[in-house]
């Protein structure tokens, strides 16, 4: 059932008067500044709003309703307790410029969170301010730039990125005005060290790595890589989107990384909100300490204070108007308090157990994995190249068909270097039963691909809409509703 646009429900003159005080107002003193037209917004009743958006919401798959094994996204359970904690009126109503005297409670949470994240990553210090992973990446690369600039080292114009990297890595390098140099991956999923050695040099500002990589394997020669890059004066950036795999098991700081960003909205169980808000704190080692973005929470005696550019003259500065996505930080803080010291490593154990188990079941059933000799991290790749060749069913088709069976699709066509790939990340919060059920459906679709490929190629069949036309969307662009 498609749902009409809220604009189509609109009837001119309809309003809910209880939402705004109906007293008379006088704006005659600013009459030259006033808008003459009535903004073209919907005019609907409160019930119409409730019904519209409630029904719209029901058309979504979500963690709360479906297994959502989207690789590189860590779609774990988003605890309602941490949502409640962050939604306490005292937190919601606090103005970012409340006086320090009225901010000790929240600063205590943020200060402790900084320390927890430093401990978890094995780094020296943390700034929570980046608003998402990509902004964390930008902050990290900007710190790398600031570091080289502070040393008068102006030659460094390149950032090295493996071909398996997430798109934000090269894009963040670009945002920091670096040229991107891609290096290939070996057949076993590790970085090609020879290519790396050939690539590094005086122009190398840094390398950006994800470990475990987006191929779902741990980069085993990471220490060697660190040595190679450090030897030429470059720094190491760690993309922490995959931290769920090694939480409490290994730490980027110990691997030789100089800077890392975390995705609180992945590893630390904060909800994705249909695309955001997230939070992408950065953590640094000693080298980059002075450059951390502000604000940072510090403790002076028993009082918490917020450090600004005055306290941190070498800081790359501020990335947004206030403190970042504080509501998400509070959720991550609460999450860590709930799991505790023992709970965090358990996350990595069960996330990895689930991924390896599911991979095993699928391999046994005839699916192809590109790195069959490797342990999966918290996620793994299945390639459907063979199925495409033999049955004409693509990774996209498999993904869409999964929807019909009540499972969200894995990530498709990423990383780009594996043809027809599904990147599957079950997370630790899914049960063996759920994973078995998913595997069963995968196997069923594999059979369908052979017996009734058209069924798979035209999927989904049970969603509110059938397969949508992306090409038309881009060609005959309709991105803003207009009054007819």
């Amino acid at each position, binding site marked *: 059932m498609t749902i009409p646009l809220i604009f189509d429900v609109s009837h001119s003159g309809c309003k809910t008067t209880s939402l705004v005080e109906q007293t008379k107002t006088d704006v005659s003193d600013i009459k030259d500044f006033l808008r003459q037209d009535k903004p073209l917004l919907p005019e609907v009743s409160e019930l119409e709003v409730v019904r519209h*958006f409630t029904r719209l919401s029901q058309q979504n798959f979500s963690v709360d309703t479906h297994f959502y094994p989207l690789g590189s996204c860590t779609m774990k359970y988003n605890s309602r307790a941490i949502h409640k904690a962050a939604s306490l009126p005292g937190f919601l109503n606090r103005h970012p410029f*409340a006086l320090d005297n009225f901010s000790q409670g929240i600063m205590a949470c943020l200060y402790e969170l900084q320390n927890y994240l430093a401990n978890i990553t094995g780094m020296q210090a943390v700034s929570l301010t980046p608003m998402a992973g990509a902004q964390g990446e930008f902050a990290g690369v900007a710190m790398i730039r600031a570091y080289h600039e502070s040393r008068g080292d102006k030659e460094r114009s390149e950032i090295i990125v493996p071909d398996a990297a997430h798109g934000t890595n090269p894009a963040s390098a670009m945002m920091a005005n670096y040229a991107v140099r891609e290096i290939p991956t070996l057949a076993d999923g590790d970085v090609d060290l020879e290519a790396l050695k050939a690539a590094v040099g005086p122009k190398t500002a840094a390398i950006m790595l994800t470990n475990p990589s987006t191929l779902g394997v741990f980069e085993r020669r990471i220490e060697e890589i660190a040595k190679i890059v450090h030897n030429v004066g470059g720094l190491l950036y760690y993309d922490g989107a995959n931290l769920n795999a090694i939480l409490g098991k290994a730490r980027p700081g110990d691997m030789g990384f100089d800077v890392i960003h975390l995705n609180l909205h992945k590893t630390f169980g904060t909800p994705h909100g249909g695309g955001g808000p997230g939070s992408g704190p950065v953590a640094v080692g000693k080298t980059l300490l002075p450059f951390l973005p502000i604000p940072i929470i510090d403790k002076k005696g028993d009082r918490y204070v917020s450090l600004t550019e005055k306290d941190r003259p070498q800081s790359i500065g501020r990335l947004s108007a206030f403190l970042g996505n504080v509501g998400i930080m509070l959720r991550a803080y609460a999450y860590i308090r709930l799991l505790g010291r023992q709970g965090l490593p358990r996350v990595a154990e069960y996330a990895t157990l689930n991924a390896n188990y599911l991979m095993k079941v699928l391999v046994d059933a005839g699916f192809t994995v590109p790195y069959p000799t490797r342990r999966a991290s918290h996620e793994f790749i299945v390639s459907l190249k063979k199925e495409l060749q033999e049955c004409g069913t693509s990774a996209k088709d498999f993904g869409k068909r999964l929807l019909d069976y009540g499972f969200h699709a894995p990530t498709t066509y990423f990383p780009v270097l594996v043809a027809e790939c599904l990147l599957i990340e079950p997370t630790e919060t899914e049960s063996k039963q759920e994973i078995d059920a998913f595997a069963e459906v995968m196997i069923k679709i594999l059979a369908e691909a052979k017996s009734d490929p058209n069924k798979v190629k035209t999927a989904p069949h049970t969603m509110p809409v059938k397969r949508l036309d992306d090409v038309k969307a881009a060609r005959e662009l309709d991105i803003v509703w207009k009054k007819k």
Partner: protein
Amino acid sequence: MPYIPHTEQDKQAMLAALKIQSTDALFSEIPETLRLKGELKEIPEALSEAAMLRLMEERSEQDKAGLCFIGAGAYEHNIPSVIWDIVGRGEYLTAYTPYQAEASQGTLQTIYEYQSMMANLMRLDLSNASMYDGASALAEAVLMATRSKQKKTVLIPQTLSPFYRQTIQTITHPYSLNLVEVPFSMQTGRIELADLKAYEGQEIAALVLPQPNFFGVLENIDALTDWAHEQKALLIAAVNPLATALLKAPGTWGKDGADIAVGDGQPLGSPLSSGGPYFGFMCCKKDYMRQLPGRIVGRTVDTEGKTGFVLTLQAREQHIRRAKATSNICSNQALMATAATIYMSLLGPEGMQRTASLCHDNAKKLCESLSKIKGVEKIFSAPFFHEFVLKLSQPVAIVLAKLAEAGIQGGYDLSGAYPTLGNALLVCATETKTDNDLNRYSEALQQILRG
């Protein structure tokens, strides 16, 4: 185990299938030297949900402050109860970016409606799906303008929030732009057309124009927009979207309208929340569409011709274009944009205009009564929206501390960012304040300045 569903039996069955003894074996590819030996010492022992909530309640209660008259970029507004009851539904809250369109029509249609409302509100051709916040959106708009114009100079009024200016600084720093700060009139509190003369004939990519500006003052937008266009510069409007329901829409400024409009969407249903999450919005004329950062949702049809929605124009984005994308942005602030969509639907054009008018009215009333107090002086002459600047006879920090004791958060202390203004205080009153609240403020301030 919190949030781990495996029973011991499940675990053993899975280990057996993998032919390993313990989960340790799963980490065997991590070099031994890198395996964390001890525990995470900084992390405390697990708390129960109840204990965690009690701790958080204590912390949040601890920060309880008085009536809020602070603005400076984050505004206290009434948030209809409907909004967060719906936004908090699992289907919105716990979905990812809507890559699988057929299983994400809820989020996609909502964003399409959001884009439509924002574009209509701004009177511009299009809107993206949201940015991180107003400041970073503006920084991206500056980059977008310099890319489009292939020029490096951008004029940035000092009436723009200092935090926005700092953010532009940080984000554009790698590109070594020429960011020129334009001073304001100490008399009117805004940029005067005459003062722009100095920049004429320069290679200007864009003029940034806040409305209202950081002092709450209304800028002379029509004249300044026309001036920018005469210089062949883009005009980037940085506006409060709630105020825009009442004030001239950026798309109608001057003869040709602003080219890009950005701002912080917080007034549209996001709680103050210590500064975030809010969301940035970004709208522009269609000429700049391919330069726009961020996600965009388009309306299309399915194989049976039924209407549906998908992410579109992805060739601008990092996951397709990588180092050649228009921005690195990936996750945005979709949930807050969802809240704004519901906010705008609930209030409608009339409700938003009325709310903005109430803000203005309250601020005017408060400004009148406060400026009557001995030791208080309103320093700018130009009209304002819902914030205004007062000069006090005593240091602002001291006055604010005393006001706090009286249960009043008196405003934002400008003496740090604008030392030349002296003991200047930026005060905000929105529709949340009753006459009684306004009186409480005047009485308290009178008391303090008298004593």
